[in-house]
């Protein structure tokens, strides 16, 4: 059985384990509905108004910032895989076979196709890891400039105008 089959069995088991008690409960529970029972639970308080309320506009700035760093995170994903493999290869005590296997994995080669000369040494792996870290530091550093800008301009302040007003009053 392959990995996908295991995942499928796991998913089916999870769905059954959730659906079985719910179905059983629906079949055997007494059906006497009262208005109190069907009311929305709100910490014992009477619910006021609709739960579909309009959110504060200030959430939108935070959401936009989140999207930008979210996209950045997607680009970190392959980098992290390479960095992890490179760090694993920096261990000088690894045996030749393990080292060759890790090198094949790092380069995306089919296992057993890479010649033994192509094995990455611990020194090469260290250089790769350091280079990768520096690479990412530049990538992330550029984005931090934007973060600093947003922070400085007060876009992240929740009570922005109150703070701005206080500064304004202090200047006068």
């Amino acid at each position: 059985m392959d990995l996908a089959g295991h995942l499928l069995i796991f998913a089916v088991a999870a769905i059954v384990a959730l659906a079985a008690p719910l179905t059983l409960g629906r079949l055997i529970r007494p059906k006497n509905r009262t208005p109190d029972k069907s009311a929305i639970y709100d910490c014992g308080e009477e619910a006021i108004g609709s739960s579909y309320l309009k959110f504060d506009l200030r959430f939108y700035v935070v959401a936009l910032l989140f999207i930008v760093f979210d996209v950045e995170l997607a680009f970190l994903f392959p980098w992290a895989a390479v960095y992890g493999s490179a760090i694993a290869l920096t261990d000088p005590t690894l045996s030749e076979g393990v080292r060759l296997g890790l090198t094949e994995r790092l380069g995306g080669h089919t296992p057993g196709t890479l010649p033994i000369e192509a094995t990455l040494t611990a020194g090469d792996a260290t250089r790769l890891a350091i280079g990768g870290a520096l690479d990412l530091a530049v990538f992330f550093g550029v984005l931090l400039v934007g973060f600093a800008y947003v922070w400085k301009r007060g876009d992240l302040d929740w009570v922005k105008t109150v703070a701005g007003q206080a500064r304004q009053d202090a200047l006068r």
Partner: protein
Amino acid sequence: MTGADALFGVFAALACGGALGVAAFRSVARMAFSLVVCLSAVAGLFFLLNAPMVGATQLIVYVGGTVVLLIFGVMLTDAGVGRRMKIGLLETISMTFIAIGLAAALGWTAVGLGRAIPGAPVLDEEGVEIVAATPDTLRPIGLKFLGLGGESGVGFLLPFEIISVHLLVVLIGAAYLARAKRRVDATPETPPEATRETASDGLGEQA
């Protein structure tokens, strides 16, 4: 039939069901949830097709980001989440034709491609794996981001760094556009509800 084939069927059915839900539901909140189901199932398909980078991007950016922004956009507007969409007859008919055309084009392409899932590993007589079922595609992309790997040994280091500059522009632009316009006649008498949305940009402090 392998487990991957069965799982492909499950994800494909979930993607189609989610897409139908987006079209069929009238409540915006349910539409958004259907979109989450559809996009997550598509991400699962990408993982099955041995494209973890695309799958992870689908999950992180589309499911995690775009749908959240969509829900925020609905919640922040006056219409609200509970709003029910009204769709005219003409729109329904025209969109049905477009959907049928798209489905036909996609189906034709999919049938022409044949079996797309990376197959089972090739084994020799002793059961030792000769060709892996799924060679890694994630790390080669990562190596290319670092300017290494590939036949020519040249990667995408410069484009990778340009992406961060691009994201920086997006970040500053989004923050600038999202900042509410400062009211020129902002006086201390203005009620707090009105001043709360105004921005204290540099001009406000100089005034």
